[in-house]
Protein backbone atom coordinates (compact mmCIF):
# COMPACT_ATOMS: atom_id res chain seq x y z
CA UNK A 1 0.00 0.00 0.00
CA UNK A 2 1.38 3.38 -0.97
CA UNK A 3 1.36 6.15 1.57
CA UNK A 4 0.11 9.63 0.87
CA UNK A 5 2.35 12.47 1.91
CA UNK A 6 0.92 14.40 4.83
CA UNK A 7 -1.82 11.85 5.30
CA UNK A 8 -2.15 12.32 9.06
CA UNK A 9 -2.57 16.06 8.59
CA UNK A 10 -5.25 15.47 5.99
CA UNK A 11 -7.00 13.09 8.35
CA UNK A 12 -6.74 15.66 11.10
CA UNK A 13 -8.24 18.35 8.89
CA UNK A 14 -11.02 15.99 7.93
CA UNK A 15 -11.77 15.28 11.57
CA UNK A 16 -11.71 18.99 12.47
CA UNK A 17 -14.10 19.66 9.59
CA UNK A 18 -16.51 17.06 10.94
CA UNK A 19 -16.52 18.42 14.47
CA UNK A 20 -16.76 21.98 13.20
CA UNK A 21 -19.89 21.00 11.29
CA UNK A 22 -21.23 19.17 14.31
CA UNK A 23 -20.77 22.13 16.65
CA UNK A 24 -22.22 24.71 14.24
CA UNK A 25 -25.75 24.62 15.64
CA UNK A 26 -24.76 24.13 19.28
CA UNK A 27 -21.90 26.52 19.80
CA UNK A 28 -20.81 28.69 16.84
CA UNK A 29 -17.80 30.00 18.72
CA UNK A 30 -16.31 26.53 19.17
CA UNK A 31 -17.14 25.84 15.53
CA UNK A 32 -15.14 28.92 14.56
CA UNK A 33 -12.29 27.74 16.77
CA UNK A 34 -12.13 24.40 14.95
CA UNK A 35 -12.47 26.13 11.58
CA UNK A 36 -9.55 28.32 12.51
CA UNK A 37 -7.55 25.20 13.33
CA UNK A 38 -8.23 23.70 9.89
CA UNK A 39 -6.60 26.72 8.27
CA UNK A 40 -3.84 26.75 10.89
CA UNK A 41 -2.91 23.11 10.34
CA UNK A 42 -2.97 23.60 6.55
CA UNK A 43 -0.72 26.63 6.86
CA UNK A 44 1.77 24.92 9.15
CA UNK A 45 2.07 21.77 7.07
CA UNK A 46 1.86 23.63 3.71
CA UNK A 47 -1.07 21.61 2.42
CA UNK A 48 -4.11 22.85 0.54
CA UNK A 49 -7.58 22.91 1.98
CA UNK A 50 -10.06 21.46 -0.47
CA UNK A 51 -12.12 24.27 -2.04
CA UNK A 52 -15.35 22.57 -1.01
CA UNK A 53 -14.36 22.82 2.65
CA UNK A 54 -13.05 26.34 2.20
CA UNK A 55 -16.32 27.55 0.77
CA UNK A 56 -18.26 26.37 3.77
CA UNK A 57 -16.23 28.43 6.23
CA UNK A 58 -16.80 32.10 6.93
CA UNK A 59 -13.91 34.10 5.57
CA UNK A 60 -13.67 36.38 8.56
CA UNK A 61 -14.28 34.28 11.66
CA UNK A 62 -13.94 30.80 10.07
CA UNK A 63 -17.26 29.72 11.49
CA UNK A 64 -19.07 26.91 9.69
CA UNK A 65 -21.84 28.34 7.51
CA UNK A 66 -25.17 26.54 7.61
CA UNK A 67 -28.24 28.21 6.14
CA UNK A 68 -30.73 29.40 8.80
CA UNK A 69 -28.43 28.29 11.64
CA UNK A 70 -25.22 30.28 11.43
CA UNK A 71 -25.82 32.11 8.18
CA UNK A 72 -28.50 33.73 6.06
CA UNK A 73 -28.67 32.87 2.40
CA UNK A 74 -29.91 35.32 -0.20
CA UNK A 75 -30.04 35.23 -3.95
CA UNK A 76 -28.96 38.54 -5.45
CA UNK A 77 -28.61 39.98 -8.90
CA UNK A 78 -25.27 41.49 -9.74
CA UNK A 79 -24.57 42.76 -13.26
CA UNK A 80 -27.44 40.74 -14.75
CA UNK A 81 -26.10 37.48 -13.27
CA UNK A 82 -27.34 35.85 -10.12
CA UNK A 83 -25.16 35.33 -7.07
CA UNK A 84 -25.75 33.44 -3.86
CA UNK A 85 -24.86 35.52 -0.84
CA UNK A 86 -24.22 34.06 2.59
CA UNK A 87 -24.08 36.31 5.61
CA UNK A 88 -22.44 34.94 8.74
CA UNK A 89 -24.54 35.66 11.81
CA UNK A 90 -21.60 35.53 14.23
CA UNK A 91 -19.47 38.28 12.71
CA UNK A 92 -21.63 39.69 9.91
CA UNK A 93 -19.24 39.09 7.04
CA UNK A 94 -20.67 38.31 3.62
CA UNK A 95 -19.56 35.77 1.06
CA UNK A 96 -20.99 35.58 -2.40
CA UNK A 97 -20.72 32.89 -5.03
CA UNK A 98 -21.63 33.23 -8.69
CA UNK A 99 -24.57 31.08 -9.75
CA UNK A 100 -25.04 31.26 -13.48
CA UNK A 101 -26.68 28.17 -14.84
CA UNK A 102 -25.03 28.20 -18.25
CA UNK A 103 -21.47 28.58 -16.93
CA UNK A 104 -19.17 26.06 -15.30
CA UNK A 105 -17.73 27.57 -12.14
CA UNK A 106 -15.79 24.57 -10.87
CA UNK A 107 -12.09 25.05 -10.20
CA UNK A 108 -9.69 22.62 -11.78
CA UNK A 109 -9.29 20.44 -8.68
CA UNK A 110 -12.99 19.64 -8.73
CA UNK A 111 -13.09 18.54 -12.36
CA UNK A 112 -13.01 14.82 -13.03
CA UNK A 113 -9.87 14.96 -15.19
CA UNK A 114 -7.87 16.32 -12.23
CA UNK A 115 -8.04 12.95 -10.49
CA UNK A 116 -5.11 10.83 -11.53
CA UNK A 117 -5.18 8.05 -8.96
CA UNK A 118 -7.28 7.13 -5.96
CA UNK A 119 -5.39 5.70 -3.00
CA UNK A 120 -7.33 4.08 -0.22
Amino acid sequence: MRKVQGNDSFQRMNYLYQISKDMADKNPILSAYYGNLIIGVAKKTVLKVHPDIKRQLCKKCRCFLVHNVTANMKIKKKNKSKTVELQCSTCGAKRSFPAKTDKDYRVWVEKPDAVVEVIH
Partner: protein
Amino acid sequence: MSSEETFNKGAAEAIVGFLNANVAKSGIPNIESELKKDFVLAKKRSKDRKKRSSKKKVRCLTRAEKKELGFYAIPRHGVQYKDILPLNQIWLQYISDVLELDNSIPDPTMKVWENFTQTLYKADFHGSYLKVIRSKCPSLVDKSGICIMDTKNTFKIVSENNITCTIPKRDCVFEIDLQKFKVTLFGKLLCARPAERSTKKLKGNMRPDL
Protein backbone atom coordinates in the same frame (compact mmCIF):
# COMPACT_ATOMS: atom_id res chain seq x y z
CA MET B 1 -18.82 65.37 -6.07
CA SER B 2 -21.07 67.36 -8.41
CA SER B 3 -21.44 70.27 -6.01
CA GLU B 4 -17.66 70.46 -5.65
CA GLU B 5 -17.25 70.60 -9.42
CA THR B 6 -19.71 73.45 -9.88
CA PHE B 7 -18.05 75.33 -7.05
CA ASN B 8 -14.67 74.94 -8.74
CA LYS B 9 -16.08 76.16 -12.04
CA GLY B 10 -17.50 79.31 -10.45
CA ALA B 11 -14.21 79.99 -8.68
CA ALA B 12 -12.22 79.51 -11.89
CA GLU B 13 -14.48 81.91 -13.80
CA ALA B 14 -14.11 84.47 -11.03
CA ILE B 15 -10.32 84.20 -11.16
CA VAL B 16 -10.26 84.59 -14.94
CA GLY B 17 -12.54 87.63 -14.67
CA PHE B 18 -10.33 89.14 -11.99
CA LEU B 19 -7.20 88.66 -14.10
CA ASN B 20 -8.88 90.12 -17.20
CA ALA B 21 -9.79 93.24 -15.25
CA ASN B 22 -6.44 93.80 -13.54
CA VAL B 23 -3.62 92.54 -15.78
CA ALA B 24 -1.95 95.05 -18.11
CA LYS B 25 -3.34 95.07 -21.65
CA SER B 26 -0.24 93.52 -23.18
CA GLY B 27 -0.61 90.48 -20.90
CA ILE B 28 -4.27 89.65 -21.61
CA PRO B 29 -3.71 87.26 -24.57
CA ASN B 30 -1.21 85.25 -22.47
CA ILE B 31 -3.60 84.61 -19.55
CA GLU B 32 -5.13 81.43 -20.93
CA SER B 33 -1.82 79.75 -21.74
CA GLU B 34 -0.33 80.76 -18.39
CA LEU B 35 -3.26 79.24 -16.48
CA LYS B 36 -2.90 75.91 -18.24
CA LYS B 37 0.72 75.49 -17.16
CA ASP B 38 1.65 72.39 -15.19
CA PHE B 39 4.11 72.45 -12.36
CA VAL B 40 6.27 69.37 -12.52
CA LEU B 41 6.81 68.88 -8.81
CA ALA B 42 3.31 69.96 -7.77
CA LYS B 43 1.28 67.51 -5.70
CA LYS B 44 -1.35 65.94 -7.86
CA ARG B 45 -4.13 63.57 -7.00
CA SER B 46 -4.45 60.73 -9.42
CA LYS B 47 -7.86 59.29 -10.21
CA ASP B 48 -6.75 55.70 -9.59
CA ARG B 49 -6.33 56.18 -5.90
CA LYS B 50 -9.98 56.95 -5.34
CA LYS B 51 -11.02 53.76 -7.08
CA ARG B 52 -8.72 51.65 -4.95
CA SER B 53 -10.04 52.94 -1.66
CA SER B 54 -13.61 52.07 -2.59
CA LYS B 55 -12.79 48.35 -2.75
CA LYS B 56 -13.40 46.58 0.53
CA LYS B 57 -11.45 43.51 1.48
CA VAL B 58 -12.58 40.93 3.99
CA ARG B 59 -10.00 40.77 6.70
CA CYS B 60 -9.56 38.26 9.50
CA LEU B 61 -10.86 39.19 12.90
CA THR B 62 -8.44 41.11 15.05
CA ARG B 63 -7.71 39.98 18.57
CA ALA B 64 -9.84 42.71 20.09
CA GLU B 65 -12.79 41.81 17.88
CA LYS B 66 -12.40 38.17 18.78
CA LYS B 67 -12.41 39.02 22.44
CA GLU B 68 -15.57 41.04 22.00
CA LEU B 69 -17.33 38.11 20.35
CA GLY B 70 -16.28 35.88 23.26
CA PHE B 71 -13.78 33.63 21.54
CA TYR B 72 -11.48 33.40 24.51
CA ALA B 73 -13.81 33.20 27.46
CA ILE B 74 -15.93 30.10 27.53
CA PRO B 75 -18.32 30.40 30.49
CA ARG B 76 -18.16 27.82 33.27
CA HIS B 77 -21.63 26.44 32.58
CA GLY B 78 -21.75 27.39 28.89
CA VAL B 79 -21.26 23.98 27.28
CA GLN B 80 -23.57 21.05 27.83
CA TYR B 81 -22.05 17.59 28.15
CA LYS B 82 -24.67 15.93 25.98
CA ASP B 83 -23.97 18.40 23.17
CA ILE B 84 -20.36 17.31 22.85
CA LEU B 85 -20.93 13.60 23.34
CA PRO B 86 -21.09 13.00 19.55
CA LEU B 87 -17.70 14.70 19.33
CA ASN B 88 -16.22 11.92 21.42
CA GLN B 89 -17.72 9.25 19.18
CA ILE B 90 -16.29 10.86 16.05
CA TRP B 91 -12.94 11.16 17.82
CA LEU B 92 -12.79 7.46 18.68
CA GLN B 93 -13.40 6.65 15.03
CA TYR B 94 -10.76 9.14 13.93
CA ILE B 95 -8.09 7.94 16.32
CA SER B 96 -8.58 4.30 15.38
CA ASP B 97 -8.24 5.36 11.75
CA VAL B 98 -5.05 7.29 12.35
CA LEU B 99 -3.34 4.74 14.56
CA GLU B 100 -4.63 1.79 12.52
CA LEU B 101 -5.85 0.02 15.63
CA ASP B 102 -7.63 -2.63 13.56
CA ASN B 103 -4.39 -4.25 12.48
CA SER B 104 -2.25 -4.71 15.55
CA ILE B 105 -1.05 -2.79 18.52
CA PRO B 106 2.73 -2.47 18.50
CA ASP B 107 4.90 -3.21 21.53
CA PRO B 108 7.45 -0.75 22.89
CA THR B 109 10.19 -3.13 21.77
CA MET B 110 9.07 -3.20 18.14
CA LYS B 111 10.47 -0.97 15.44
CA VAL B 112 7.04 0.43 14.58
CA TRP B 113 6.70 1.82 18.08
CA GLU B 114 8.40 5.10 17.34
CA ASN B 115 6.16 5.66 14.34
CA PHE B 116 3.15 4.87 16.48
CA THR B 117 4.03 7.40 19.18
CA GLN B 118 4.87 10.00 16.55
CA THR B 119 1.42 9.73 14.98
CA LEU B 120 -0.23 9.82 18.39
CA TYR B 121 1.69 12.98 19.18
CA LYS B 122 0.60 14.57 15.93
CA ALA B 123 -3.03 13.56 16.32
CA ASP B 124 -5.79 15.84 17.49
CA PHE B 125 -7.05 15.71 21.06
CA HIS B 126 -10.25 17.71 20.66
CA GLY B 127 -13.06 15.43 21.67
CA SER B 128 -10.98 12.90 23.57
CA TYR B 129 -12.07 11.71 26.99
CA LEU B 130 -9.24 12.76 29.28
CA LYS B 131 -8.68 11.77 32.87
CA VAL B 132 -6.05 13.24 35.14
CA ILE B 133 -4.31 10.46 36.99
CA ARG B 134 -1.39 12.31 38.49
CA SER B 135 -0.71 15.95 39.10
CA LYS B 136 1.33 18.30 41.21
CA CYS B 137 -1.89 19.93 42.28
CA PRO B 138 -3.94 17.44 44.30
CA SER B 139 -7.29 19.07 43.52
CA LEU B 140 -6.90 18.29 39.80
CA VAL B 141 -6.41 14.56 40.28
CA ASP B 142 -9.33 12.40 39.14
CA LYS B 143 -10.91 15.15 37.07
CA SER B 144 -12.24 13.82 33.82
CA GLY B 145 -14.13 15.04 30.80
CA ILE B 146 -14.18 15.65 27.08
CA CYS B 147 -11.56 18.05 25.79
CA ILE B 148 -13.03 20.94 23.80
CA MET B 149 -10.10 23.32 23.57
CA ASP B 150 -6.38 22.77 23.34
CA THR B 151 -4.02 25.67 23.90
CA LYS B 152 -0.28 25.79 24.35
CA ASN B 153 -0.30 25.18 28.06
CA THR B 154 -3.83 24.09 28.94
CA PHE B 155 -6.65 21.74 28.12
CA LYS B 156 -10.26 22.88 28.52
CA ILE B 157 -12.47 19.97 29.46
CA VAL B 158 -16.18 19.55 30.07
CA SER B 159 -17.07 17.05 32.76
CA GLU B 160 -20.30 15.06 33.09
CA ASN B 161 -21.89 17.65 35.37
CA ASN B 162 -21.62 20.33 32.64
CA ILE B 163 -18.76 22.23 34.26
CA THR B 164 -16.02 23.54 32.00
CA CYS B 165 -12.62 23.73 33.62
CA THR B 166 -9.10 24.48 32.55
CA ILE B 167 -6.27 22.10 33.31
CA PRO B 168 -2.61 23.03 32.90
CA LYS B 169 -0.71 20.46 30.86
CA ARG B 170 2.75 20.78 32.28
CA ASP B 171 2.36 19.20 35.66
CA CYS B 172 -0.31 16.65 34.87
CA VAL B 173 -0.38 13.10 33.60
CA PHE B 174 -3.41 12.19 31.51
CA GLU B 175 -5.03 8.93 30.64
CA ILE B 176 -7.07 8.22 27.53
CA ASP B 177 -9.28 5.19 27.30
CA LEU B 178 -9.24 3.66 23.81
CA GLN B 179 -11.54 0.67 23.79
CA LYS B 180 -8.75 -1.92 23.56
CA PHE B 181 -6.17 -0.33 25.80
CA LYS B 182 -5.30 2.73 27.80
CA VAL B 183 -2.80 5.41 26.85
CA THR B 184 -0.92 7.45 29.40
CA LEU B 185 0.16 10.87 28.22
CA PHE B 186 2.66 13.10 29.94
CA GLY B 187 1.30 16.60 29.60
CA LYS B 188 4.79 18.00 29.66
CA LEU B 189 5.46 16.63 26.18
CA LEU B 190 2.26 18.07 24.74
CA CYS B 191 3.15 21.68 25.49
CA ALA B 192 2.75 23.11 21.99
CA ARG B 193 0.06 24.85 20.04
CA PRO B 194 -2.32 22.36 18.43
CA ALA B 195 -1.57 23.60 14.90
CA GLU B 196 2.17 23.65 15.47
CA ARG B 197 2.26 20.18 16.91
CA SER B 198 1.56 18.62 13.53
CA THR B 199 4.94 19.78 12.22
CA LYS B 200 7.03 19.50 15.37
CA LYS B 201 9.13 16.43 15.99
CA LEU B 202 9.02 14.67 19.28
CA LYS B 203 12.34 14.12 20.95
CA GLY B 204 12.97 10.46 21.60
CA ASN B 205 13.50 9.05 25.06
CA MET B 206 12.50 12.01 27.11
CA ARG B 207 12.52 11.11 30.75
CA PRO B 208 9.62 12.37 32.80
CA ASP B 209 10.43 13.53 36.27
CA LEU B 210 8.77 11.71 39.08
